[in-house]
């Protein structure tokens, strides 16, 4: 079976006045199979959101993407604006982090969701609104007819996120990009939203590209996880395996740094220093200056992402020391 989404050596540079000011993505490769949920985790600035935006070609104007993004056999980076419109919101849709700022405040929720359906499915206002009501019902909003007439500020964060999910699934996409879909919500509401996404994924069979800084959430939701560090995938594998036996020291650091797993009050295992800047790059591994397992080779030669069996891949010279 061919992959639903295949990202191969994706690089994104930002430039100003013709000069590259930031190398944000430095070669990201990963795949999403049909119906599969793949999680992308990493810290602020590692490039996870940028990867998601690249797939939909929603990068800012001063960004240049190179590499290859293949979705349902089409090279996304080569598509014309016209071809792109047929995919965005229809075959690939996106759920953003802050539902409060993702809707237009001056139109009702029902009108906005209806526009997506009307444009992509070529149906009229009346059919569109009927479909909106059905979809709002499907995402667990009581009284869809009245919710439709609300403006975004009249709904709670949790209800708005349900409405955004309704907008994302109304055209039955084959890939849903969820960028921190629960980060702005309370934990109890987050659990409801995750379950909703899972149920819809089961019912409609779409693949999910799940972007989050929260390893716990990603572990619960995803079949496979990719760990990003400084614009590259440093480890990728099946969720259970990656959690049980992380092979990259950074993955291990992420797992151990979570409070709640160690003795209360005891020092949490953490790595020193901070994520490197996105301008220049030393020749070796980006994690080397912070790595507890570092050897000379790590500063000289950049490790590439290589399979180590059972579907797990890691970019580390010392992976077998873990």
């Amino acid at each position, binding site marked *: 079976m061919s992959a639903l989404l295949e990202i191969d050596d994706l690089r994104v540079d930002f430039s100003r006045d013709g000069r590259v000011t930031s190398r944000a993505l430095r070669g990201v490769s990963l795949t999403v199979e049909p119906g599969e949920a793949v999680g992308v985790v990493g*810290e*602020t600035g590692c490039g996870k959101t940028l990867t998601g935006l690249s797939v939909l070609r929603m990068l800012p104007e001063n960004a240049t993407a190179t590499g290859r993004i293949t979705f349902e056999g089409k090279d996304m980076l080569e598509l014309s604006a016209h071809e792109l419109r047929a995919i965005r919101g229809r075959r690939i849709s996106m759920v953003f982090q802050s539902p409060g700022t993702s809707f237009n405040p001056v139109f009702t929720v029902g009108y906005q969701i209806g526009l997506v359906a009307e444009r992509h499915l070529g149906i009229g206002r009346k059919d569109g609104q009927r479909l909106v009501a059905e979809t709002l019902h499907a995402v*667990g909003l009581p009284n869809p007819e009245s919710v439709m007439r609300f403006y975004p500020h009249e709904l*709670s964060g*949790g*209800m708005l996120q349900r409405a955004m999910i309704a907008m994302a699934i109304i055209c039955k996409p084959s890939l849903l990009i969820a960028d921190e879909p629960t980060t702005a919500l*309370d*934990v*109890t*509401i*987050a*659990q*409801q939203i*995750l*379950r*909703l996404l*899972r*149920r819809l994924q089961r019912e409609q069979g779409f693949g999910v590209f799940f972007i989050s*800084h929260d*390893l*716990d*959430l990603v*572990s*619960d*939701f995803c079949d496979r996880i990719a760990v990003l560090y400084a614009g590259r995938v440093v480890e990728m594998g099946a*969720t*259970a395996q990656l*959690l049980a036996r992380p092979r990259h020291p950074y993955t291990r*650091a*992420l797992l151990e*740094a*979570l*409070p*709640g797993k*160690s003795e*209360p*009050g005891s*020092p*949490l*295992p*953490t*790595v020193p220093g*901070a*994520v490197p800047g996105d301008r220049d790059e030393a020749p070796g591994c980006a994690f080397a200056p912070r790595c507890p397992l570092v050897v000379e080779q790590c500063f000289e030669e950049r490790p590439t992402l290589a399979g180590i069996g059972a579907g797990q891949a890691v970019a580390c010279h010392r992976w077998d020391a873990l």
Partner: protein
Amino acid sequence: MSGNLLELTGVAKAYPVPGSGRKGASLLAVDGVDLAIPQGRVFGLVGESGSGKTTVARCVLGLTPLTHGSIVFDGTDLATVDARTRRSLRREIQIVFQQPLAALDPRMTVDNLIAEPLTTHRLARGAALRERVGKLLGDVGLSSVHLKRYPHELSGGQAQRVVIARALATGPRLVVLDEPTSALDIVVQAQILNLLVELRDEHGLTYLLISHDLSVVRHLSDRIGVMYLGRIVEEGPAGALLESPRHPYTRALLASTRGRGSTSLDEPAPITGEMPSTWDVPSGCRFHTRCALREELGRPEVCQTTEPPRTTVGPRHVAACHFAQDARTQQAPPPDPAREG
């Protein structure tokens, strides 16, 4: 009670809501909170947005007057102190905010930011001031290379260290930590949590920790209070409360944060619905509209009619639930297929 550095008794805070259509209407953000923190201990206050936890912090800091109740700090009632004592108390009670970059003046460099509280309270000047700033910088794990930087030149973790240094500058005894790591990445959060533990031990600090994140609260706290709609619904020693939670809301919160591959998303969510508005606090037990235990018990009427008393369920462990003593509260709620996910 003696030995407590901070004692809140029946603290309530109502905010007037003009133009609401209801005459003299007010919104009761905090509705009768009691808590006590002994010197050198950490009390964790956990709850969802709108539960009133930040309002409690504002009351403790004296940023807003109380509607009812009292706050006693080291034997002094904060409501009745004269202006002079209040000023000196401000040195003893400090706060660390959630968003470090919003808490730092973007036009000031790190050295001036850390010096500011010392000059404001006339605690040091000249060479002594510079020495104090250098010491504080070291205490929070920064070095002299950061002295001349502006907030935007710092990472989130470094900025939060500056905020902590500012809070420590006046030599406080109580530090209110309002979501101190919510805006930070996991690895940075671990670094800051470690720093907070070190500082407590070195300076003998007392913390009132406010967070929505149970795992952060668990890591730092000796005692935990769980807030729901302006009240503490369960309170006890951190270990006992987390190991055998007796209020259905605490259990739902715990189930919501278990995580890391251990939660089946095909089972119903630990809690349904959303927290009602503070405008319309449900009758009886304020949690009854979302309570799984009440459903399981066949919706007993008492939940809807009577406010549950604080029931002792263990040593220094109380829960405000009519069925806190019920054996069933100690089991996990059974999955209910009727509940929507």
